């Protein structure tokens, strides 16, 4: 049995809708993710999927409940960095001034680690895996949307994460490209035995995950 990586227990989140009233976004959410496990969350726009994802990473605070990642409690505080957790967003947020290779190396530099031959080798292997090796010295603006998102995926893996929180990574791509990118993402996650929580509108993609849930009316319903 795989080791449990993340446990979210009875998470509740509400917003002030007026001066006196509060709107409950979701309540009593329980999530458990083990090592190498994939989970997908679907739901309508505005159901609070992204907020839940941000809350699981400690980027967003919750009203009540606890989040435990690798036996460490996660709190929302001024430092948004949680070692072992990495993100992929709908928009790629690549640094336009840097080459594809440098975009992959920048998280390593920011983490204060030395970019030695081993790290560069890892970056090249990832680029090869994602079919981007020929673009390594090009600027992101010369790439297509799908290629850029693949660079963003590669960049995420450079941090050697144990859990990836992916917020609609194919949201701005066409259907065919989305399928190619998501397949690549699943395969790389599988290869590196990385767990992930995928927030998506696409049920076909969600069905491919080990766990599939829907966020409806503030509740997380397990579908698979």
């Amino acid at each position, binding site marked *: 049995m795989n080791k449990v990586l993340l446990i979210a227990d009875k998470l509740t989140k509400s917003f002030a809708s007026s001066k006196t009233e509060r709107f409950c976004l979701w309540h009593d959410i329980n999530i458990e993710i083990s090592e190498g496990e994939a989970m997908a969350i679907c739901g309508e726009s505005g159901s609070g999927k*992204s907020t839940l994802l*941000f809350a699981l*990473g400690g*980027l*967003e605070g919750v009203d009540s409940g606890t989040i435990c990642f690798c036996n460490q409690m996660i709190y929302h505080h*001024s*430092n*948004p*960095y949680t*070692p072992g957790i*990495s*993100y992929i*967003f*709908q*928009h790629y*947020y690549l*640094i*336009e*001034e*840097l*080459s594809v290779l*440098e975009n992959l190396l*920048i*998280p390593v*530099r*920011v*983490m*204060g*680690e*030395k970019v030695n031959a081993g790290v560069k080798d890892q970056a090249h292997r990832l680029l090869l895996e994602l079919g981007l090796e020929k673009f390594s010295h090009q*600027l992101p603006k010369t790439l297509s949307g799908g290629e850029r998102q693949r660079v963003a995926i590669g960049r995420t893996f450079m*941090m050697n994460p144990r859990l990836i929180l992916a917020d609609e990574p194919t949201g701005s791509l066409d259907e065919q490209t989305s399928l190619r990118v998501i397949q690549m993402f699943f395969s790389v996650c599988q290869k590196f035995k990385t767990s992930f929580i995928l927030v998506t509108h696409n049920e076909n993609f969600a069905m491919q995950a080990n766990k599939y849930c829907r966020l409806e009316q503030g509740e997380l319903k397990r579908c698979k």
Partner: protein
Amino acid sequence: MQLAFMWTLKLALHYLFPKGRIGTFFTWMSIAGIALGVMVLTVVLSIMNGFDKTIHSKLIQINGQIKILSTSIIEDCTQWMHTLENFEGVSHVTPFVQGIALVQHGDYVQFPRCLGVDAKTVQSVLPLNTFVRSGDIADLNQGVFVTKGLAQTLNVNVGDIFDIYSPLSLEAIKRDEVLLPKELPIVGIFETEWAEIDKNTLLCSLETLQDLYGLANGVHGFSLSVKAGTSVQQLCSKLNAHLPKPLKAYSWMELDADFLHILKLEKAMSFFVLLFVILVACFSISSGLMSSVVRKTREIALLRIWGARRWQIAALFCWQAVFLSSIGILLGFIGGISVLHYRNDVIRCLTGLIFPKDFLWNFYSFSNLPVAYAWQDFALVGSLTFIIALLAAIIPALKASFSLVTRSLRSE
């Protein structure tokens, strides 16, 4: 620590000089603004230094490095000459008599400032030869030298003779006596290029003026030159400690203290006014960086998620100001020195388009702009520009470092 610091430096450089480009529009406009400000300051301050240097050297040529003055007549001139010449640090000494007299040539009358000097010793302290336009200073005992301005006013030339009335004439009138004017030939014309002197000054031998003022062997003071390596101010203090009252030594700086103060004030004001060029350039850096912060808000959020500290985000933007100002300062100095190197060609070209050929000489008594480089000015301009640019980056840097990560990532 070093690694945590280095990536901010590298990324800042990439923001200014993206891969495959020689810099962004913002980069080069910011550098141009700083460079222009530094260049203008360098040019103006160096030219002002040049004028200062020229004026200082002129003041020394006219007055000597030290002047010893007395409120009464100094009777034992030879004794004092001997004492002063043997004083430690004093190189040469020359006595002088000065005052006002009435001169007349035909219908023209003037009250020039008269300076009586000892023809034998004066050249060792005051380089009068350099001022002579016609005549020979060795002929001083045979007549007088007048300035170009006085010669024009009196309508005289070398060889002419004019009458000079002593102030003693007034005393004689009180006693119902008549003191006849002295007839003196003009043996030369001089010009110091110092307007105050050139307008109305007469130069004659010490004996002539002593005779005219009835001083016998008395003098009004001494001009001193100082041995190389001796501080004028220190020697002045030493002399004042030894000299009996009412004798007092004045350095050339003290004699024209007000004028020199105005020169300093002018330079300070020019610096202050031109500093605004740099301030404006730094404002544009600040607004450029601020728009960069807004544009890169999601990148900043990502950097924070990857573990970047607030100070590292702030450093990322401060580094940009450091690079922009450093390059701007360097280019500004290079531009300034280049302009100063070709200053005379530039000025001749500009004035030649509008004014006659000798315009500068006729109006400002110079045909070549004097320049003096002062490393202190370069250091001041460079460091002030650097500090202002860094201060300009602080607000964008703070905004970047305190931007909210979740809001930035959700903003679309």
